């Protein structure tokens, strides 16, 4: 495997961004075509996605009907955080959804097909599925964010917009890293789907200000399972522009680091899979 891969790289030394972008587009079109043949499924899944977001919204409404604020965060600031988290969760939903299939493919042995292509295994595997229903979540997230933004009255300047884009990208890296690592456990543990399910449940707490956690758990959810970075720390760059905490400044670098580590972990699993061979 490794030898043939290196031979291939020698033959075609240019494997830049353009090369992968072209391949991604081709695979994406195929995936969308096959999705279109299950139109009912597409419609119902999108409705389902919107329903989960609506239910999260209703939960907020009910909470704030009874309680005026949570740890100093009022209704609109909480909505900002919620909208921010929904947008930050879109990339993992849209581009990395195939992680959910990983354990079935590994178990059945179908995964081997990804190892026989002269392109990056991780890239090829993820490119196979583009989850369209994530776009519904994106729309809902943007709507919520804009609503909260207007009510809080944050000025719209080029600098703020730049920060927004940068920190949204940062935030999404953390969730992608969590899900990659969770999915990759299936290379070692048979039927490890529950790890993903658990992580996906923890993500529900990304929409709350993580200064509500204390002690060990604060450290756990900041540095080990970094859900505090999925919305809380990145969004502080905009909500508290005068008083940005150090961890917010560190977020972009940490995000890249977490993503890189999860990628390495995932690839380590692939290598282990190669050796067992099934």
């Amino acid at each position, binding site marked *: 495997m490794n030898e043939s891969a290196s031979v291939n790289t020698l033959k075609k030394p240019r494997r830049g961004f353009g090369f992968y972008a072209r391949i991604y587009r081709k695979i994406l079109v195929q995936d969308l075509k096959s999705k279109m043949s299950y139109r009912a499924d597409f*419609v*119902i*899944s999108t409705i*389902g996605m919107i329903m989960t977001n609506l239910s999260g919204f209703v939960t907020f409404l009910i909470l704030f009907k*009874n309680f*005026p604020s949570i*740890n100093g965060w009022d209704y609109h600031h909480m909505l900002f955080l919620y909208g921010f988290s929904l947008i930050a969760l879109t990339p993992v939903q849209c581009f990395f959804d195939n992680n959910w299939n990983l354990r079935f493919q590994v178990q059945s042995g179908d995964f081997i097909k990804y190892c026989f292509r002269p392109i990056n295994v991780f890239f090829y595997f993820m490119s196979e599925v583009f989850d369209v229903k994530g776009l519904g979540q994106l729309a809902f997230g943007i709507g919520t964010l804009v609503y909260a933004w207007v009510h809080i009255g944050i000025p719209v300047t080029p600098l703020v917009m730049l920060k927004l884009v940068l920190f949204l990208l940062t935030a999404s890296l953390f969730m992608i890293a969590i899900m990659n690592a969770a999915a990759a456990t299936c290379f070692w543990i048979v039927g490890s789907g*529950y790890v993903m399910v658990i992580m996906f449940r923890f993500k529900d707490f990304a929409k709350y200000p993580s200064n509500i956690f204390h002690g060990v758990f604060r450290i756990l959810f900041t540095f080990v399972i970094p859900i505090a970075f999925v919305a809380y720390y990145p969004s502080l760059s905009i909500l508290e522009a005068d008083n940005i905490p150090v961890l917010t400044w560190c977020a972009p670098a940490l995000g890249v680091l977490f993503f890189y580590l999860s990628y390495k972990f995932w690839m380590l699993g692939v290598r282990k899979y190669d050796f067992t061979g099934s």
Partner: protein
Amino acid sequence: MNLRKRLALTRAGIMESLQYRLGTAVTLFANLIYLVLVYFLWRAIYDSAGTDVVNGMTFTDTMIYLILATALFNFLEMFVVWDMSRSIQSGKIILDLLKPMKFRSYTFWSYSGSHVVLFTLTFIPTFVVVMIVTNGAIPMGINLLYFAIATVIALVVNFSMEMIVATICLYTESTWGINIVKETIVLLLSGASIPLAFFPDGFKTVVDYLPFRAVYDIPLTILLEKNGADTIEGILPMFGLQLAWALILTVAGTLFWNHAVRKITVNGG
């Protein structure tokens, strides 16, 4: 259709779920962490509220309610929808349909084993811990018996809802979508994510008559003796609602299934 056959399925289910010990252990541990998150969230909410009692619920009441709701959820959770769609895809459903037992009761009893295991491994430990930690906040008396009865009916209602949703999936070929819609509605309207006591009045009146409440809210209300559940007069209407929905959903689900089963298209197998 004697009881021994059914209990054999229960036993097989118990053995099957004990196979995945690592998974069960990790899930238990993760649930504990999840509950800690829930604790921090509601602690912060109550600290910000400035009062101790909100809508008749103290912080301790809310915590007991939510923790036991999570424990109930873990024990009642079923994957009928996923299992059915997988066995349709693989063709295995034909074998299940040919069994000398009604498909519905076969499914119910196959799941009973994992219910028994999960009840013993998740619900009882959680209950004991909550009981010790809150030191007498859960009333100990005849309400435990009523709670047990209510939980059994809740199990039947939950199973009926699962079966109806699984049957819908036969028509739509959309498993993920239908399942997520079901899960979202059940979790929100049954009180599993926010106690129903916090719902605004108008909304609550509607939710009170829906079947979802029969799964989590009624057993927990009975256990905590809230909302007049400390007298038998208060409990009877709750049991009535549960039984009515259990009956309606069972009949509706059976009719729907009998109609749908003729339509199953299995590709391969």
